[in-house]
């Protein structure tokens, strides 16, 4: 899979799962492994998304990959 396409699919996977299921990095890697994407490629794509500020690592009850927008929502809610 092309890198940009892979990134888009990873982002969508996380986005569609938001509020329902949380993905750890390894869960994402396994998801795309089943679609034939080598682990290393998925890992690099995740890193690009995180470095680019679209996704973040969260750490409530274990570390997960979530949408970067979650921080703003969270801080708004927590400061209410």
């Amino acid at each position, binding site marked *: 899979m092309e890198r940009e396409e892979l990134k888009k699919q990873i982002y969508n996977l996380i986005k569609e799962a938001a509020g329902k*299921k*949380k993905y750890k990095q390894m869960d994402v890697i396994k998801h795309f492994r089943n679609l034939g994407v080598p682990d290393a490629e998925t890992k690099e794509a995740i890193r690009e998304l995180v470095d680019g500020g679209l996704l973040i690592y969260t750490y*409530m*009850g*274990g570390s997960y990959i979530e949408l970067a927008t979650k921080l703003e929502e969270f801080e708004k809610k927590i400061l209410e």
Partner: protein
Amino acid sequence: MGDIPAKFFIPEVVDVKQRKTDIGPPHYENFLPPVIKKNYGQWKEHEILSPGLMVHIAESGDKIWTVRVASPRLLSTDTLREIADIADKYCDGYFRFTTRNNIEFLVSDEGKVQPLIDELKAKKFMIGGIGPRVSNVVHTQGWVHCHGAATDASGLVKCIMDELADYFTTKELPNKVRLAVACCTNMCGAVHCSDIALVAIHTKVPRIEHERFKDLCELPTTIASCPTAAILPDPAKKSIKIKEEKCMYCGNCFSVCPALPIKDAENDGVAIVVGGKVGNLRTPPKFSKLAVPFLPNNPPRWPEVIKAIRKIFDAYVAGAKKHERVGEWIDRIGWEKFFAVTGIPFTWQHIDDWTYTFETLRTTAQIKWVKK
């Protein structure tokens, strides 16, 4: 990687795009005194000259003196600057911390040792902690900074060390006594393998905030967090249920799910565990075991906890042979005698009914008859 600039600096305007990642810590060689760099790995022996002073002698004949002082671990930048100033004056700027949070001034010039000690004394630093004594207490964040804390760790440490100060600064013990405080059962400190340690506990089941559960918590993670499988799904409420009779109030579910608060001003308490060690000397490393299952959480000075520690501590000092750690002393005299000499009541909570029942019930007719 590992480099530091010739001079540390803070730019007027900070451009966050300049942030370097994955450089790791600065290389330790940047911070070693010249005498250590020269004699790295070539130390021959050391001698403890007084409770807060030791000298290390290298194969080359070079020496380095270490003066150890206590620290509360929580330090303001003012105090850190004061330490830096003292280090400049006597140690060419070199000092370190120990893994138990003490500060060590590293002196290369023997002539500066006594003046350093004099200044530290004048400034009310507490000098000591070397040799068969009480060292500083390993501890957790407590109310100072933790959402899971059932008590305050720094406060307990302060009270314990005030009580046992003589054993840091002067008096000797049969062997070192390693103390630790954990402000909840998560035990971010080495409580489970310390000579005498405190761990704060809950005694009531968590409250379930069903409305918040949906937003904040993940069902499988929450269920898996329970050591006794007391958490079940509650599909009707899109939340969970807790089998109260199975809950041991550990609070692990709260660490993964904020909608399960367990903190309880009236019912939280402090337990004492004893007899653990990490070193391999003489006997293998040991876990700490339960001595006192509950004492009131009574800030700011925790009088019941401090009195209890003192009783255990004094019994050890009176009963242990030279070189025996608390756990080795107890192993020799037997637990029935430990409870007899300390007077601690033996309760239901002392008998393991979780993972270690198998190993902890007595399977011999070897019993000491002690006065009850």
